[in-house]
């Protein structure tokens, strides 16, 4: 690998671009191919290879593929997965920490300034806005999970309304079965269809018998993880 290529990879990763490093295994020649269409380097990229590599980037799946120039190793670089937590409540504290360790970029959204503070969420991106304002610029995509934790329909409902038609790979909402049934009713009245509302994991989390905030965070992160990899298995 040329130092110049490595520097480029590191800079593009820092800039959170979506790209792949393509290595022709027979010769060691390399190119960087960006999802937005550009490429540069020594490997000849024909349209078949480009489309294979673009699929790999979208599926976040590195691997070895056959190309016209022999076997190619495609190493995908995508920005970190994101977790958007609505509600800077007690459960959000261990969840933000655990998700960070698991590799997520975590953002906590809560319009109540005394909840979302740096003291309670050190190192986490905090957004002190109502979710209906905060969500659209965050643009939840297929590498984003969203969890609402406030129980408060004034905060949770606008958040759900803003993400139910997004590409987010996971949507979860804290609350008992009863709370969730009421939530389903409200969202139905607001014009959301059963398919859209059915995307919500509620009550949130895998059933682990979790009691403490940290245990509930484990059950939520476990469900997010399983959903992420279920999608990968479907894509494969």
């Amino acid at each position, binding site marked *: 690998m040329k130092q110049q290529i*490595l520097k480029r990879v590191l800079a593009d990763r820092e800039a959170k671009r979506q790209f792949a490093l393509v290595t022709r295994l027979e010769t*060691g020649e390399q190119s960087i191919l960006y999802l937005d269409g550009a490429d540069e380097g020594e490997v000849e990229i024909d349209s078949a290879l480009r489309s294979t590599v673009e699929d790999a980037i979208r599926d976040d799946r*590195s691997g070895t593929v056959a190309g016209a120039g022999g076997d190619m*190793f495609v*190493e995908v670089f995508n920005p970190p997965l994101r977790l958007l937590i609505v509600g800077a409540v007690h459960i959000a504290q261990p969840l933000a920490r655990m998700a960070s360790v698991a590799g997520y970029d975590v953002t906590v959204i809560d319009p109540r300034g005394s909840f979302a503070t740096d003291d309670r969420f050190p*190192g986490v991106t905090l957004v002190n806005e109502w979710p209906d304002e905060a969500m659209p610029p965050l643009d939840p995509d297929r590498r984003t999970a969203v969890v609402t934790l406030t129980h408060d329909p004034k905060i949770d409902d606008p958040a759900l309304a803003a993400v139910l038609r997004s590409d987010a790979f996971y949507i979860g909402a804290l609350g008992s079965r009863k709370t969730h049934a009421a939530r389903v009713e409200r969202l139905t009245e607001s014009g959301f269809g059963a398919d859209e509302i059915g995307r919500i994991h509620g009550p949130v989390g895998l059933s682990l018998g979790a009691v403490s905030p940290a245990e509930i965070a484990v059950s939520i992160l476990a469900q997010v993880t399983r959903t992420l990899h279920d999608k990968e298995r479907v894509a494969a």
Partner: protein
Amino acid sequence: MAADAGVTAISKDDDVLNEARVWREDGRDVAIATVIRTWGSSPRPVGSHLAIDSGQNFVGSVSGGCIEGAVIHEAQEVIATGKPKILEYGVTNELAWEVGLACGGQVHVYVEKLD
């Protein structure tokens, strides 16, 4: 994440590539090993990295420790010749003195010199 969060994202061994760059800029001879294919229960996913210098210092991992020694050894030749290599490791007999994966998986590792 910021260091003051008290946690570090460890799911991706991203810092291995950065370490390789720093070593090279310090004038050291460096090779990068990358997992390019796996079968069965191999411990590290495709895209995992190990950076090695000519003094056999290393950072990162391409297995749970099963084959690192062998990869570091092979990397010395890659550093000397500048020619990339694909190393193939499979199931080992735990009673034999060969290098392999006790877990029963198979892994291919691409080793290249950082020019």
